[in-house]
């Protein structure tokens, strides 16, 4: 069973994604405190990380950077979930290795499809 870690400071976003992914038989770990994110990821070693960009304490971008610089973690695909809609933001995200850039508001169904697609690709 694939494991997905979702990090967002908005509890209802976490709840929404967790419900959606679990229903699709994925194992979901949610993190609200971004400062603990790296520690959890290292421990859980998920197949996918879904990050919110704007979070107090540690921003999603910083977590992504840290992931990509970690030899053991850098192959984990990262989905960036953000309210920043500008192209420049997306570009920045891509530069640092974001797999998918998803703009809020988003469709949970679509997110699930993208997750399944990414995980399916990985497996294959």
């Amino acid at each position, binding site marked *: 069973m694939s494991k997905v870690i979702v990090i967002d400071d908005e509890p209802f*976003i976490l709840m*929404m994604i967790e419900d959606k992914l679990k229903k699709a038989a994925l194992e979901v770990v949610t993190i609200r405190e971004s400062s603990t994110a790296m520690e959890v990821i290292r421990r859980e070693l998920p197949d996918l990380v879904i990050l919110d960009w*704007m979070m107090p304490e540690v921003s999603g971008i910083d977590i992504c950077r840290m992931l990509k610089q970690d030899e053991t973690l850098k192959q984990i695909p990262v989905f960036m979930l953000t*309210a920043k809609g500008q192209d420049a933001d997306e570009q920045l995200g891509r530069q640092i290795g974001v797999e998918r850039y998803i703009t809020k508001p988003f469709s949970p169904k679509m997110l699930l499809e993208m997750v399944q697609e990414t995980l399916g690709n990985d497996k294959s």
Partner: protein
Amino acid sequence: MVRTKIIYRLIVMFLVFAAMITIPLTFTVITQVNKMIAEEEAMRPPSDREYENMHHVFSSRLLGQIIPYSFYILIMALMLSIFLSRKMLISLKELQRGAKSIREGNLDVVLRISGDDELAAVTRAFNEMAASLKEKTLDLQKKNTYVDAMLDPLWVVDEMNRVADVNPAFVRLFGYSREEVIGASVYDFFDEQNVGIIRNQLLERTERKIASTYEVSIITREGTSMPVLLSGSPILEEGRVSGKIGIFKDFREQQGFRREVEQSRDYVETVVNSIEDQLLVIDKEYRIVTANRRALEHVSGSPVGQYCYLVSHDMNKPCWADGHECPAQSVFLTGKNFRTTHQHTGSGGERRFHEIVATPIRDAAGNVSQVIELIRDVTDRISHEEEIFRKNRELVALNSISGLLSRSLRADEIFMNVLDRMIEMIKMDGGGIFFIDELKRDMVCQYHRGISEEYIRMMGRIRMGEDIPGKVAVTGQIMTTSDISKDTRIERSLMKHSGMKGYCCLPVRGKERIIGVFCLFSFKPHYFTEEEESILNSIGEMTGIALENIKLYEKMRDMYEQQRKRRDDEHGQLLALTTKLGSAVDLRYVIGSVLELIRNMFNADFSWLLVRDSGDNYRLRASSSSTDLEDRMLYPRGVSSLEGYTADKRTPTVIADIRAGSRFYVPDEIGSLGYQSALAVPMHIGEKTVGVFTLYYRRTRDFRDEELHFLRIIANMLAVSLERYDSYVRSISEKGIATTIIQSVVDGIVTVDTQGRIIAINRAFEEMTAMSADEAVGLTVCDALRYTRENLDLRIAFGECLESALSGESINRGVLMTTAAGAQLSVLITGTPVLDAGGAVTGVVCLIRDISREKEIDRMKTDIIRSVSHEFRTPLSAIVGMTEMILEGDLDAQKDKLYLQTILSEGMRLSDMVSDLLSIARIESGMETLRPEVLDVAAIFEELQVSLESSCKKKNASIRCEVQGIKTFTADGSKLKQVLLNVIDNSLMYSDSGCLVAVTAKKSDNGIVITVKDNGWGISAEDMPHLKERFYRGRHGEKIKGTGLGLFLCNEIIRLHGGTMDIRSTFGTGTEVTLYLPDRGTL
């Protein structure tokens, strides 16, 4: 027929020949055979009878055989001969055809000649005969045609003078038919008179066998008489006249011609005779053929037939033989017209001039056969011409002399030329000019022609009254003599025995006295006409006047030189003045010194310069007295003054005594100092009067015209300088205002010329570039901006603006500028062309506007839009995503409810944000009003704590509220709560977990001071100045969601209350927000 006959003849002849040949031949053969048989039988006699019978039979059989064969041979021979004579038959046939053709009248026949036998010869002869016949016939036909075609009538008359034939023209012209005429006597056609003429002539001519021509009249069939020219010629046959041919010519027209010719001959004769000139027609032998009446008058008897030289010159041989010019000979030689004038001496010895025009008369061959000479007496004309020529020559000489006199100012040139002209004019051989020495009372020859130096020396000085020149010098009368050597009036003279004959001496008369004497002489006697004398006299007078003029000229030249020198001096002074006036800026000083200069130059005792101001008052601008107060009003408008009068009159005014009379108001300083005369000079530019300067004298002073002229020039210069100074001062002050404005503008302004070099910069630009105006002027803009590498873009933008503006188009460019102080400014550069009056670009003004602030606002706007959109997106995510999941049926019932609650609360959050934004918009637009109410401070704090409870729990934070010395306070409660909520929420948001927020309310003078203090992250120094700005998001903005509107909204609300908000913070330590609000109740 020929063929048949010949063939028949041939056959018959053959039969005869055949019979003649065959019969003897047959008998011969039979005889010979019988003989042979007999001989044989003689040798061997026959034995039986049978044989004998047989023998007889043989003979008859032989005969029977020979005869057919012979016929056969002969017939064959006949056929052969017919075949051979075939050609002969052809020739015969041809001849037969030819004969037939000729009989039919066709003479064109030519027979074919075949063979070379006699028949061919006959055929050839036939052909020749036919050709000859044809030729003759054609000839005859032609002649007949000619006769028929003749336009002139013709008849043929036999020896009995009967008409044998006439041609069609005869029938046409005279109307008789041919039949009527033939056989009639020729005399039937003429009247009696003509018959007589013809008969006589005819007899004679017939005998002499010669042709004859008669001009007779023939009677036509109608009975009229027609003039004809009848030419008759005899027809000779064997030396005998067998008949005559007469050809008639219609002479009706010719008769008319002849009449005309006769008439014109008469006319010509009349004309020729009526010519006033003599007219002679001369033939090649120089005999006179015709002479008109005028010519006949000059000779006795008729000259016709005589030799012209005999008649005209009484000579026995042609005059040209003696070398004289002969017009007739010339025409005969050249064949061209010849015109000449001959001089003859009349019977009384007088000269006569004849103009002779000779014209050729040519014969039919074009050769000159005769000459017409037209001789006209032109004596009067020639003498007139001579007169005119002489007069003309004199006039030319006079003209040249007078031209010379008026043109030349050199005495020697004049005298020599006048002398030459005079000699030439009256054809003298030489002459001289004597000049009178008034002191010594004698005269000496100074210029001469045609006399040797030696003779002049010998002549030496002639005393006044002596000799001819001396006498003329005294009397002033011209003296002439045709031959001095024979003149008894002159007893003693040097000229008398010098070989001179014609002599003339005339005075050279000046204005008041005689200056000298002209003498002219010739070696031949010369009769001086009255006219010549008068001309010479006038030349003498003209020369005298010219001489005086020369002296006058020399005097004038001296005067002119003096004047020029003076003018040069004046020019020098003017130049000095101009230099001073032109160069000086401090005109007050200069005008004073110029005035002083003028005063000295014109020796005036006092001078001043007044200017007319815009109110037409006269003010003192400068004076030679240093005590005078400048710019004092001397004459208010309307006061009658010398200066005012002069200015109005616009010409200098000279007053001999200003004290006399009360015409002008005289100010004290003039009146009291005893000035007497004055000269006022107006100064004006075009129509505008600038002022007047006046020179005052204690004595009387006259001014020459050139002095006044000079003063006017100075006045003009002063006027221009004054005007220029005034406009300079005006422009300085205008420029000052403009400069002040430019300098005080906060935007940088730099003015450059068309080369891009800086002309001026303002203070703002100085600050931007840290370069003073003095340093910058003359540099290019790019050089002025050189101090930093970062300004490359700026320089490029400047370049573009300048280039565009220089081409006349104003553009602007936004660019980043790094100032000398290192600050980065967003600037907008605007280049605007400076145009002169004609619209040409003379420079560019560049305006550098600091738009950093606008840029910042722009940036903030963008930020807030992003921020707002972000803030909106998060709640929208809940609404959109959760709704989708509910609809998809992803959730159980319990979850559904939770989801729907979230959707609701997030929707509310969106609504709040929209309200916030709307509040700000309302406050900003000034639409928001306060609703003050009395508030319980402690109660408000409690409410706040309740509201913030959940937030505090999240952050594990604690809020401590304290109220000091105040219970109630009047303000807009909801807005105050909004402010406090916002500020405290900020403290919670931008702090770590477990933070502490202290809220304190204190009474102030007439209001309340509320302080919110936290121990959070604090605010960075760079964010501090911007905290109260709308949409500004500080350093923590990346982490914390917000609109950037919170503090701005708070500040606006406090401001609306008339209070203040003060924020103090240390980065990493904490922040303290102090709000002061006046009590609305006490207001």
